[in-house]
């Protein structure tokens, strides 16, 4: 009996994805647990494992196809010894049980949230948004994106009321990564007005197509910088003690980085100043109950922010170990959605590049991001005398709607206290 292999849902909100590559060819034998394909979503590449034994009889969706709907058949698996003629008896997709155990979540059968209509980029991928003529007109006049609204009319149709109420709805509550789901990979890269103009001007260039990570990051950064009233606080931290302690720890054979200390100090400072661990919405400031610290990691595919969850409850070495694992997964595109979606506060560290100080863009819906510069020897004045100290400048970018200047400053003090006297981090 031939079985359909279906496009898995890698997260509960995923509606479609890109079939990045096949790792098995038609005719290959597969065992349960074999990785047969890779699926690319907004931010991650996932492996699809076979759940059954058999022969990969037919590949129905070619590698590189974007916009493949969840639960669409992507291949047909035949039982061992079954004739290819059985292909004609291919079961209807509806009653086929997915023989695919998607990594990492058993979400292949997870129902799509019914109430959520096609999200923003769905419109770009050609899906129709149902709205009344009047709603469309008012939205157009006021520059409101219909796709960002949830309809309350018949069959979820967007009505005038929805548009008028839309502005006050907290879009920020929704995880941005989920609003960006379904962004299809554009096929031809170097098109568009700018490319045309450059060509006319005689400039030559190489177009590097934007992958999903790039597109989502770009969209979110723009949204952040345009809609969040940022302000910036800079503080200098003397890290001589920290460096001394790190040296002693590393001599024991356990390797920890300055960044691991920064994560631990941020976590404890957030515990002390919970108001900095928050998200803004029009209705309420959402203060996170857990201390989940996102850490920006540069990858060949773009920027991604894996999360150290419950960082305040984790010791330096477990933070260090976890960070190494997450960074490796990030670089190879293997992060699970729950490993990078969420978080309450972000750290971005460019110290390893010798950057003295910089201001980062807030990672919405979070309220704060800490930009960490390089630790460098500088002359400092202590008790009237000039001495040499290792100083690390840190700049906190803050959403002024949810976090006031004094709260941001208190947070930085709490952070500095621990960075400068790492013994406090034992507490």
């Amino acid at each position, binding site marked *: 009996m031939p079985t359909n292999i279906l496009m898995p849902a890698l997260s509960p909100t995923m509606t479609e994805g890109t079939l990045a590559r096949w790792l098995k060819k038609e005719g290959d034998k597969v065992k349960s647990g074999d990785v047969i394909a890779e699926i690319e979503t907004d931010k991650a590449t996932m492996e699809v494992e076979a759940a059954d034994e058999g022969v990969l009889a037919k590949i129905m969706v070619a590698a590189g196809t974007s916009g493949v709907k969840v639960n669409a058949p992507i291949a047909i698996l035949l039982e061992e010894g079954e004739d290819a003629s059985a292909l004609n008896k291919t079961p209807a997709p509806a009653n086929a049980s997915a023989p695919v155990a998607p990594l990492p979540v058993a979400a292949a059968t997870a129902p799509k949230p019914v109430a959520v209509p096609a999200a923003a980029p769905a419109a770009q991928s050609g899906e129709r948004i149902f709205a*009344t*003529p009047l709603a469309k007109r*008012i939205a157009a006049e006021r520059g409101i994106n219909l796709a960002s609204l949830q309809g309350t*009319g018949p069959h979820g149709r967007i009505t*005038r009321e929805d548009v008028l109420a839309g502005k006050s709805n907290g879009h920020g509550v929704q995880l941005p990564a989920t609003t960006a789901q379904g962004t299809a990979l554009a096929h031809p890269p170097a098109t568009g007005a700018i490319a045309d103009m450059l060509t006319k001007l005689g400039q030559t260039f190489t177009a590097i197509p934007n992958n999903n990570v790039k597109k989502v990051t770009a969209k979110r950064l723009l949204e952040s910088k345009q809609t969040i009233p940022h302000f910036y606080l800079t503080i200098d931290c003397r890290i001589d003690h920290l460096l001394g302690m790190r040296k002693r720890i590393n001599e024991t054979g356990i390797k920890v980085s300055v960044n691991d200390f920064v994560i631990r100090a941020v976590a404890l400072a957030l515990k002390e100043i919970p108001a900095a661990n928050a998200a803004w919405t029009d209705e309420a400031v959402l203060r996170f109950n857990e201390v989940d610290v996102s850490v920006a990691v540069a990858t060949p595919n773009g920027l991604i922010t894996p999360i150290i969850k419950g960082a305040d409850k984790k010791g330096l070495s477990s933070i260090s170990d976890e960070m190494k694992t997450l960074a490796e997964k990030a670089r190879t595109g293997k992060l699970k959605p729950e490993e990078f979606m969420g978080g309450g506060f972000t750290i971005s560290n460019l110290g390893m590049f010798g950057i003295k100080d910089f201001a980062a863009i807030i990672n919405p819906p979070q309220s704060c991001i800490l930009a960490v510069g390089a630790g460098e020897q500088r002359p400092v004045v202590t008790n009237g005398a000039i001495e040499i100290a290792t100083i690390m400048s840190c700049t906190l970018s803050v959403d002024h709607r949810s976090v006031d200047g004094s709260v941001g400053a208190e947070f930085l003090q709490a952070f500095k206290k621990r960075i400068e006297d790492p013994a406090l981090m034992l507490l």
Partner: protein
Amino acid sequence: MEKFDLIVIGGGPGGYVTAIRASQLGMKTALVEANHLGGICLNWGCIPTKALLRSAEVYHLMQHAGAYGLAADNIRFDLKKIVDRSRGVASQLSGGVKHLLKKNKVTVYDGYGKLAGKGTVSVEGKTPAQLEAPHIILATGARARVLPGLEPDGKLVWTYKEAMVPTSMPKSLLVVGSGAIGIEFASFYRTMGAEVTVVEVMDRVLPVEDEEISAFARKAFEKQGMKIMTGAKVVKLTKGADSVTVTIDVAGKAQDVTVDRVISAVGITGNVENIGLETAGIKVDRGHVVIDEWCRTSAAGVYAIGDLAGPPWLAHKASHEGVMCVEKIAGVKGLHPLDISKIPGCTYCHPQVASVGMTEAKAKAAGYEVKVGRFPFMGNGKAIALGEPEGMVKTVFDAKTGELLGAHMIGAEVTELIQGYTLTRSMEGTEAELMHTVFPHPTLSEMMHESALDAYGRAVHF
């Protein structure tokens, strides 16, 4: 003690429709009705008057047979047969309601229902019973409002009820009140040959309609020979043996009119008495039960719909309200409270009047910048062919968004046409959809298209 999921008190267009919907939603439903299924609407209101007006319309056409190239002599009518037909129509439909309720497994109790403690209704009458349910919907309707000094006596001073079953045709008649009910009777009796005077306290007839429509209607009525007195008040009735002298105050000047009969049509008042509102602690304001947007009264588990709960006093409003109320109780998703601006109103006088949404004046008062379209029946082929060149279709659009704020019509069959504009409003259409819609030719509905075009300076046929 019989147990139900829902009890509805009152079997009018609000109550019986609610009971059927409740049953469809799987509720065990009881309906308590004291008089006649179908309520006033079906038995003593909307339906029998339409039967009378149809007789009047045919009579009118017969009198004008020559205009259509036909000849008819010695045109007469038999009032008893006209009334019998009207009653026959009502009883046929009332029987239909009984059948529908049975088909939908609604248990009907014949008697007066009254709230008798939390979740309890006592029924007195033919089938006395004690009923119990977590939800009780009151739909007892309304009756004619009585003005002091203008108390109906059933002989010389009529309410709608006597006016509907006349035994002889009065030679002259005075109608107090020019709302839908007053004007329909005025129109019927005038067409049947009575001298009709209409007295209206406001400055125009059909005062809830758009001012232009009111003015148009007044002209048409006066052309038919109706006497209209606006800004006028009845101050005294002096009854004779078979006539009444009515003293009317018009702008401070008293004036006497002697007529055979007087019809009082000065609005209605809710049937709030003897249904246990006081003991249940349910708030009543000026003759109507106070409800919230989901028809909930101030007592938990008790709801009120239709005329009992206030204006607009329309059967279709009552039905819609009841359905919404019961769906809310059943937890149906995606419900919206009733929007009065999407409820059409119809008056079946000659010429007919129909409207939905805001009048031009109300739209302006609400701060809208408006675009107004008008189209006369005179410019419509079908209207001319029908021999009905009298009428107009007026539309009011929001200049900013193109929303159809209101539509106001007068003329032949406009009560059948208004639904197109009601649908436009409920689907939130704009002038663009109306312009892009293909209207069949030749129909009166083409005027609806033209009116929208006219609002934007694009009318074709005028």
